[in-house]
């Protein structure tokens, strides 16, 4: 018990890094994913295809490769080459990657809404924008909550990949202690930390789903 208490401060510090990465990603990737989804279903073929290629790239290559490329490879790319600090580089990779997944979830959600909803709004004189904002997207939220919840929980655990940039998140901190003390107890403590984070998320999404359960389709 005393040992566990002694390793808590560094583990909590690692958790802060993990949570920072998690929240920065989620806050940016959700709106970006929505924009990409709207672009993907756009009438403008060039835009739609470009986003299709983007989604293919980011879902088709390992997230770790994207992390490594943005940190180590990007500085050498002509014209757009920039050297990003480790946290920013990791954040850019996570946001770009998760936005691709969210885009596909939102696209499927938008396309699952019955054509009659668009027609109902159109004959009432609503514009495409009003129809999306007031009629379609509010209904999409309800439908995409379960898959978005899934992705969000995956993200909590995927943040541990930033160890490849030598950032001291929860898992890398834990590993360092394990190697120092030749004791695997920190792994168990770290597991509990991850479980608490995902439990809070699960509970939040449950609340959201309950809120949207006031209406049926």
């Amino acid at each position, binding site marked *: 018990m005393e040992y566990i208490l002694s390793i808590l401060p560094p583990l909590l510090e690692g958790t802060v890094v993990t949570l920072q990465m998690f929240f920065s990603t989620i806050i940016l990737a959700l709106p970006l994913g929505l924009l990409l989804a709207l672009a993907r279903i756009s009438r403008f073929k060039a835009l739609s295809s470009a986003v299709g290629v983007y989604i293919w790239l980011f879902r088709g290559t390992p997230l770790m490769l994207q992390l490594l490329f943005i940190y180590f490879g990007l500085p050498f790319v002509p014209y757009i080459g920039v050297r990003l600090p480790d946290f920013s580089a990791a954040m850019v990779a996570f946001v770009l990657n998760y936005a691709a997944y969210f885009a596909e979830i939102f696209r499927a959600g938008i396309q699952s809404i*019955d054509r*009659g*909803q668009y*027609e*109902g*709004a*159109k*004959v*009432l*004189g*609503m*514009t495409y924008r*009003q129809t999306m904002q*007031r*009629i379609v997207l*509010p*209904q999409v939220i*309800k439908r995409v909550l379960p898959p978005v919840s899934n992705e969000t929980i995956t993200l909590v655990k995927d943040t541990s990949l930033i160890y490849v940039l030598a950032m001291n998140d929860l898992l890398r901190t834990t590993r360092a202690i394990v190697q120092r003390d030749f004791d695997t107890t920190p792994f168990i403590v770290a597991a509990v930390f991850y479980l608490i984070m995902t439990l809070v998320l699960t509970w939040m999404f449950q609340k959201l789903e309950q809120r949207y359960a*006031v*209406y*049926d*389709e």
Partner: protein
Amino acid sequence: MNMIKAINIHKKFNNLEVLKGISLQVNQGEVIAIIGPSGSGKSTFLRCLNRLETIDQGTLEIQGDILADSGPDGQVRYATEAEARRICRRMGMVFQQFNLFPHFTVLENLIEAPLTVKGVKREEFVPQAEELLHKVGLAEKRDVYPSRLSGGQKQRVAIARALAMNPDIMLFDEPTSALDPELTGEVLKTMRKLAEEHMTMIVVTHEMAFAREVANRVIFMDNGEIVEQGDPETVFGSPSQSRTKAFLQRVI
């Protein structure tokens, strides 16, 4: 001035010609019933009037404003998007599948378009919306979500929602076809009330009794054409075309 003037409307789906030159003029306060076998193009024609479908040839004029017109080159030119929206807003529409907004309560369904499209104030419009609900006999369902309503109640809400935009014309696309037989009566009663208030109405329907009693003019369509039209007594009582006779024999 005609409320609706459709001249020589043609419409193709891929290579299938579903409207082969339909012309129709609708006067103020007229109640027109369009009958005919399924696949005759009657719903498609109705949907062309408020550009849910685009036409391939012909002219559409709503209260003197040109919605679509094919020039000498045969190309159809539509009014600009904003102008078309403004024109079509004068026509309320009721669908077979209701198309209510499931995430809104009954009252919210009614006030949504007046608020977002016309920009009226919520507190000013709510009493009007409540009055409309009262008119369709659903005042007590004000705060209920559509999923809690029966089909007949849903369709009456849909009628009230269309009326909330204060349209000059009402289009009904088989409004009772998705309903259980015992629920069609309440919807037809609401429509009859509208007709008595001299609303201009075009009703695509399979309800022959309704067409006969309420309509001023009955139009029989078959295979993309208007085969016969006239007052209900003539069309139902002594149709002149053999196709009309055959159809009426099958359905009555």
